[in-house]
């Protein structure tokens, strides 16, 4: 049996949370907005309308590229990508093909493996399609509120080899994007969308001749499952000597299977050419360096620092870094209480992060003499306990707390009391 190598590439689309759309001044938010109320001649594709690029969207795209260690192209252009679909008002999408903003970067997994990034480019989003039955007829409704929203496309090289790796990559990517504050990366709202290209090859040095594209992956978990399913499915076919069909497949999360989708059109020929309505973008080294300076500390760096400076273990540090609230709480109180302890308290949800940290001295161990004393001095209560009124333990715990001036851990006190009460009941 020839060994098969998985070659998986991921394609991620991220909606930028700019105020306005990519090529016009319409509001970019479209979540729960009345249909076709955030449109203008440009994003509606009316005749005569012209695109003018959003500077912030470009800056953020470059920052994403820098955070992913990409090379930033000195000169970039937007290109027209042609195909017909009702969600594409101009009959072409303004995207980038020949000269994208960012190329050849990487993201490092915990194992040290680098997931190479082919490109990070900027484009515009399409309209939303909703399927409905009106008067018993199947139709599709189109809402252009989302049309023209700034969309960043991140494409990896086909170097991912498993569902797990894909999941880890996506989590780290999302953390970076959220840290940069360029997108909410909310899969449910659609501000982050995933596709996986999966194929298997017998020769590790050569890509397979086919590629299966899996779309509609609505969570990282589904990506993992879909990839695993596909590897199995394709392996089985290849072992029978059958080359899997080059196609687009969807993912059914109930059946946990991918399924073939009808190919919408010959996707191959997009007839790319440079967008004549938008002059090229030339980025000086100074401009890019200035953006680099504005980058916040990235999760990887932050995590490494926490590990190094405060001796946290890696996973604890990662959990803190992931959550802005947790991280800032940690940073606020790390001088007042031992950092490792503080981190654990935060991670294990033992502290209310909405309230300032109250420092208690460590609970003393329960003095057994005091337990015995309380039992001796409260014979009625003890009798009640033995008679079946177990709730009286609470009163006895209170007595212990009184005697110890609240310095012991009440749970521990209760434990010791019960031990003695049970032991004594003879």
């Amino acid at each position, binding site marked *: 049996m020839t060994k098969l190598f998985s070659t998986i590439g991921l394609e991620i689309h991220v909606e930028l949370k700019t105020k306005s759309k990519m090529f016009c001044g319409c509001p970019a938010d479209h979540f729960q907005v009345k249909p076709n109320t955030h449109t203008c001649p440009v994003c509606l594709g009316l005749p*005569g*309308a012209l695109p003018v690029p959003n500077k912030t969207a470009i800056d953020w795209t470059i920052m994403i590229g820098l955070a992913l260690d990409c090379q930033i192209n000195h000169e970039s252009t937007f290109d027209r990508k042609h195909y*017909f679909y009702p969600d594409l008002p101009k009959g072409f999408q303004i995207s980038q093909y020949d000269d994208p903003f960012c190329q050849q970067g990487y993201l490092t997994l915990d194992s040290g493996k680098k997931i190479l990034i082919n490109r990070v480019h900027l484009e515009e989003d399409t309209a939303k399609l909703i399927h409905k039955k009106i008067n018993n007829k199947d139709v599709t409704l189109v809402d252009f509120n989302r049309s023209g929203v700034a969309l960043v496309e991140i494409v990896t090289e086909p170097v991912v080899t498993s569902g797990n790796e894909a999941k880890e990559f996506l989590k780290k990517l999302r953390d970076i994007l959220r840290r940069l504050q360029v997108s909410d990366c909310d899969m449910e709202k659609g501000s982050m969308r995933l596709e996986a290209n999966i194929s298997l090859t017998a020769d590790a040095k050569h890509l397979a001749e086919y590629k299966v594209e899996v779309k509609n992956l609505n969570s990282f978990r589904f990506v993992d499952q879909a990839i695993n399913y596909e590897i199995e499915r394709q392996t089985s076919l290849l072992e029978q000597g059958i080359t899997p069909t080059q196609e687009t497949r969807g993912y059914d999360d109930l059946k946990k299977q991918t399924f073939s989708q009808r190919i919408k059109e010959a996707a191959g020929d997009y*007839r790319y050419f440079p967008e004549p*309505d938008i002059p090229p973008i030339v980025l000086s080294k100074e401009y890019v360096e200035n953006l680099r300076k504005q980058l916040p500390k990235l999760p990887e760096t932050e995590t490494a620092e926490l590990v190094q400076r405060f001796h946290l273990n890696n996973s604890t540090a990662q959990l803190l870094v992931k959550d802005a609230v947790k991280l800032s709480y940690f940073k606020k109180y790390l001088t007042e209480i031992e950092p490792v302890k503080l981190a654990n308290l935060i991670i294990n949800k033992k502290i209310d992060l909405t309230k300032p940290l109250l420092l208690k001295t460590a609970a003393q161990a329960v003095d057994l003499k005091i337990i015995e004393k309380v039992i001796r001095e409260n014979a009625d209560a003890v009798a009640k306990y033995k008679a079946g009124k177990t709730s009286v333990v609470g009163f006895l715990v209170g007595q212990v707390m009184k005697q110890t001036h609240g310095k012991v851990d009440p749970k521990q006190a209760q434990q010791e009391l019960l031990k003695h009460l049970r032991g004594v009941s003879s």
Partner: protein
Amino acid sequence: MKLNQLNLQEALDGLKNQLFSSKELIQACLDQIKTKDKYLHAFLTLNSQALKEAEAADQDKIAKPLKGIPYALKDNFLTEGIRTTASAKVLDEFIPPYESTVSARLKAAGAICLGKTNMDAWAHGSSTETSDYGPTHNPWNLNYLPGGSSGGSAAAVSADMCTFAIGSETAGSVRQPSAWCGVTGFKPSYGRVSRYGLIAMASSTDSPGPICKTVSDAALITQVIAGQDPYDATTSALPVANYSQNLNKTSLAGLKIAIPQEYLSKDLAPQVRQLIQKAIEQLAKLGAKLKPVTLLDPQYSIGVYTLVQRSEVSSNLARFDGVRYGQDRSAFSHEAKNRCLLGTYALSSRYHGEGEYYNQAQKVRTLIIQDFAKLFKSFNLYLGPTSPGPALKLGASQNNPMFGEMEDRLVEAAAISGLTGISVPCGFTNGLPIGLQLTGPQFSEQIVLNAAHAYQKSTAYHLLKPNLNYD
């Protein structure tokens, strides 16, 4: 003289001195349209509010450069609330919800749009014969074409149905119909006038421009419509000069004008050659220094222009899918299909296939741009005939898959390089007008206008009007 026969300068003076009202001026034009347009078919849609707007202009106390002046607008400029079709059935019922920058600026300047003029459908042509609504006829002879694609606008000016008109040029579409109709057509540089709201033909060469009765009029209109537009990323930030005020030179001393020999080639009609020679002598008398030069063979410009333009056309027509507006794509006519097919082929074979035509065309475009750059190091302008001959008969454009591009071969090099140029009447042959083109480097509008103005003031061809007795 009837009010509709006045040129812009005369109309402005008349209104200023209260010799007549805007309402009377508009009414005179509307009357002219009523009597003559049934023969000429220059207009597709009339603005029902024109007279009301004229009345408002007469009451308006605020000074505006074109207050109360009636104009005709080519039907590929979007007018809010007024049907806009680009002479194509696909847009038969299209009522735009927004205004083009050009017409908005004219409105702000006080001008009144009389209506939308006929054109080659989607501006694909040099005859106005490919209009889905039937051709416009040349006011000089109804059996002849007015040229195109701004044929309706040129005919409207020539027949005194308005004070001035607006056209658009992708390669010759302002200047050629102006030449064929005996009026003045000015093409500002690419990037000088906003394309926002102009139905795109070739995005990298489209240039709105005025069609007028005089050069002086064209200068004033250009001033009003030119200038950077935040809605058009290809517009220049260069300040717009007071072109009309600066039109004071009547001597052309020191001006160096090149005469490209390729534009006076063998296939030029002998009468045209004679008229151009006469114009050369006239310009020399005015003080200009003229010298023959060699430019890249126009056949290459035809190839570049045909390929680049048709590629961009095929892309720009993709938005007409009938979902948000218009008819579905089966309503496209023959010429649109003709051009889109080549354009699609060119773009398809960009990365694969035998062609690579697109990339080669854009490289040759660079050669042509460099060719002009070299020329303009030693010369201020060049001249030639605007068109290889006078107007052609109705039907001339049919069964000719490259009619438009062939007719415009004397202006295509300039178009793909973004240059600015003008066509002014320079004589007649067989009762049909001939136009002289003066073309300069990008953003040299003042020099072009100055030279044309001086030439026009020393000649009287532009004062001759067609005999409009068609009954």
